[in-house]
């Protein structure tokens, strides 16, 4: 295997068109974390977390082409 030179790279940064599954998972993970922590420390932020979750659900559906969300 040889390494191509820039800008026509076959190896190197992965500039895929879509990162949405990973980014949505990343956001979902920290939302779910705070959701579980909320009652332990009485943060009272579950409404906001629900709002974020709904926003992610719509965004995820758009990314996957599923319009049923």
């Amino acid at each position, binding site marked *: 295997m040889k390494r191509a030179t820039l800008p026509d790279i076959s190896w190197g940064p992965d500039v895929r068109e879509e990162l949405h599954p990973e980014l949505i998972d990343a956001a979902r993970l920290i939302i779910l974390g705070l959701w579980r922590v909320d009652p332990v*420390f009485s943060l009272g932020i579950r409404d906001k977390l629900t709002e974020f979750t709904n926003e992610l659900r719509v965004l995820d559906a758009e990314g996957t082409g599923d319009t049923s969300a």
Partner: protein
Amino acid sequence: MGLNEEDYLSSDISAYSQEIRARNAEYFKVFDKVHRFCHEKKFLVQPHNRDGQHVFAVGLSVKLICDVEAAVILMERGLSSQSRSMLRVATETLIKLANICKAYEFVEAYIKTGEHQRLLFLRGMRNNPSHAYDFILPELTDELISEISENASDKKVAQWARDAGMSDLYNVPYRLYSQDVHSAPASLELYLVTNEEGDLT
């Protein structure tokens, strides 16, 4: 020096970060908003060290946010396989955090799994044929191993996930991202680029 000499450690990578962010702008925008909120709320947590549940909940929630931040740093640099590995780490952190928050009994179970890991580590050093650990072997007595064994207990991530009601998280994203953690064949796709004839380029 550029990417061809320094790879992902080159300062030239910043151009790719901008490109990757631009291509996924809508998703980065939402992620950034969620992240800012969660990071800000982290400071509302006021733990005290007399409560094991509080201590571990704080530690795991801070680690969770850092795990996710690390995943996104890797993602925006184009290290996508490595970012997925970090997402798997974050998923496991979340599953354990959820258990700790659920009930106090999980605090003890969590400590016991830590002791189990310690036991495996010490046994590994004792059984290693290399002389690299000779200096510490006198301290790894049978009494110490026995003492740790009494307080150690293993528990698989799948069980932690079931206990927290998070089997769906374990069954799909965790397993998916585990392929990158374990360098499974599917994780090599990015590195094995083929041309139209199917030959590696």
